């Protein structure tokens, strides 16, 4: 379902010479004394589907509202398509927004709602009718033109809102929690449609969401926001596999996190002694750190292997292997989650894909097991 990445060599954010379509520079927004957005800089490129991901109060919606023109930045600049947006009111911006509540005009029919922006452009009525019909076809709502918003289901309203936002062929479409009000099944279908529409039209999308699954499956790139600042910007795989901080590692997916001290710092490997974990961690690549520096090591549950026998140590000095005790198991069907208690009382979360049907030999409760991982499975985090 994920949007196919634009062929590797054409990912514009990897090309330093590419001209960003939206350029946000050191933008800060204060409400009274509180900074909702603090010194955010961000480039978004033509044709991207960019997700701003964050919890409530992370400033993602405020940033979106500044792009739409409903809020003016306290400091910093926003450029869209090379044009500085300072002081440009919403009705003069080449931007349309799909609101979280959809904000459909209750006194207008679906057609009038979708055609509202076109009417403002003084488009002749016949052309408006044609364009509206085209848009309703795009969102699969042919025949609903005469209905009022209150005669539509949640999913249909969402599509009217999308059609209305697309009507003026904006260069940039802002979507505030576009799928938030839909139930799970509908959300998955709509996600797929949204990506398809975005690909067909080639419009740049900026999506605000608090749902990491939604962000991972929709986005070409994700900007993770925390407390008004951008914590990390990257492609979904980068965000998941190479988080840059403890916040990002914990926010996206689940991670086992252990504190440790660098005891060996070589260009080709690093050894971390972790009392938190109870064994040495041998990392098979150089890390930018100082000896004796305290840092954190995070590993995803699916990257840990569980065995009954101690595996032959692959890494020098008994590193990357630890003994544990299976305290709890959650069987989820597609995979099983093991809650492994380590000797020092800490817990490690391990998941295993159930590739064998009804495996009779599966590791069970109260077994003593060995957890091991490859020397590149974890991320070393310094902040």
């Amino acid at each position: 379902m994920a949007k196919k990445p634009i062929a590797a060599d054409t990912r514009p954010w990897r090309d330093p010479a590419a001209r960003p379509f939206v350029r946000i520079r050191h933008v800060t927004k204060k409400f009274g004394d509180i900074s909702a957005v603090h010194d955010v800089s961000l480039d978004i490129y033509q044709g991207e589907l960019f997700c701003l991901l964050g919890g409530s109060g992370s400033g993602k919606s405020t940033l979106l509202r500044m792009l739409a023109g409903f809020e003016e930045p306290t400091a910093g600049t926003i450029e869209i398509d090379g044009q500085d947006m300072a002081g440009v009111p919403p009705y003069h911006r080449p931007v349309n927004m799909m609101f979280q509540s959809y904000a459909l005009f209750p006194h207008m029919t679906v057609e009038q709602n979708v055609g509202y922006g076109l009417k403002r452009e003084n488009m002749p009525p016949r052309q408006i009718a044609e364009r509206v019909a085209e848009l309703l076809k795009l969102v699969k709502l042919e025949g609903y033109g005469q209905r009022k918003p209150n005669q539509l289901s949640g999913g249909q309203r969402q599509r009217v809102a999308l059609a209305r936002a697309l009507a003026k062929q904006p260069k940039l479409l802002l979507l505030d929690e576009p799928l938030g009000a839909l139930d799970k099944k509908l959300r998955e279908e709509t996600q797929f449609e949204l990506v398809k529409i975005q690909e067909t039209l080639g419009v740049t999308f900026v999506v605000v969401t608090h749902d990491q699954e939604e962000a991972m499956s929709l986005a070409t790139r994700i900007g993770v926001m925390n407390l008004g600042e951008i914590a990390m910007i990257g492609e979904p795989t980068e965000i998941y596999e190479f988080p840059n901080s403890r916040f990002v590692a914990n926010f996206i997916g689940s991670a086992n996190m252990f504190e440790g001290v660098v005891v060996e710092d070589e260009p080709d490997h690093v050894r971390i002694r972790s009392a938190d974990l109870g064994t040495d961690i041998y990392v098979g690549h150089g890390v930018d750190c100082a000896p004796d520096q305290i840092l954190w090591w995070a590993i995803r549950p699916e990257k840990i292997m569980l065995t009954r026998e101690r595996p032959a140590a692959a890494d020098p000095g008994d590193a990357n292997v630890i003994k544990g005790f299976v305290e709890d198991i959650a069987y989820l069907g597609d995979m099983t989650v093991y809650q492994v208690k380590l000797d020092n009382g800490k817990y490690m979360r391990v998941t295993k894909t159930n590739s064998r049907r009804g495996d009779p030999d599966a590791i069970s409760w109260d077994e003593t097991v060995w957890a091991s991982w490859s020397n590149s499975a974890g991320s070393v985090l310094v902040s």
Partner: protein
Amino acid sequence: MGELEQLRRLGAGLVTAAPPLAADLPRRPWTFIQRWLAALGISGRALVIAAPALWLTIFFLIPLAIVFQVSLSQSAIRIPPYDPLITSDEGTVQMTLHLSNFIRLFEDPLYINAYLNSLKIAAISTIFALLIGYPMAYFIARSSDRWRNILLMLVILPFWSSFLLRVYAWIGMLKNEGIINNVLQGLGLIGAPIQFLQTDFAVYIGIVYTYLPFMILPLYTNLVKLDDSLLEASADLGSRPWQTFISVTLPLSIPGIVAGSMLVFIPAIGEYVIPSLLGGSGFLMIGRVLFDEFFSNRDWPMASALAFAMLIVVVVPIMFLQNAQNAVVSRK
């Protein structure tokens, strides 16, 4: 303890599936009343509806019937000053219906003019109240929570003083040696005082001033519910603020406009005090004519006929407006 007992019994009931005994119901006084009423075929719901119905019957429908009856009788010099509708004479009961009063309403231009004038004054006052009240209601609805309550308070504040007192205050403002004329003269803008009192202008001021809160409050309750995101969506789609007002705010506030206009228009038609105090002696409004018929001419039947006709004049526009409002509400 009692609950425990009940739970236990409930549990037992579940196990044995025995129907709960009537004696197991909680013993509250109203349970008995309810049961007693139910035996007579009266439910609590009927009682709740009956209370306002009874009120309306005693204090509205019966008096209305009496007025209607008086309007069909003939005026006479006696107490009360009209002939009874039903007379009995030597075993025959006779009912005489005099339609002359109603016929006179249409024949005498005095009454027709008074009605038309009342309608005109009420309509113009309503329009002005709307033009003044809408921006005020809009402003209050858009201001911050803290200010909103203060401003609403200020709108309601005049109700805390006597209505008559406020109309008299306007006399003090408008009369030839009143505040307005004094200030204008003091500034040298006018040589001689302008005649405000006893003009239509003064009556409009009085009515608009008095009924303005009735326009503002329903408009406010409507406008305060307006979803900000609709206004943002409109701006986002290319509407300037005035276009957003015309195509979003105004249509969505029609129920408030209708309610406010009704609350101003209806009492303004029958208004008596304001035109008598602020208007000239020749100022004709139906309320004034009605007063004169009752108290100066002591022609109760004529006055009753006038009152009844006024009721119709008022009820018909209400029905129209109500229809319009229902149409708007159901369209939403």
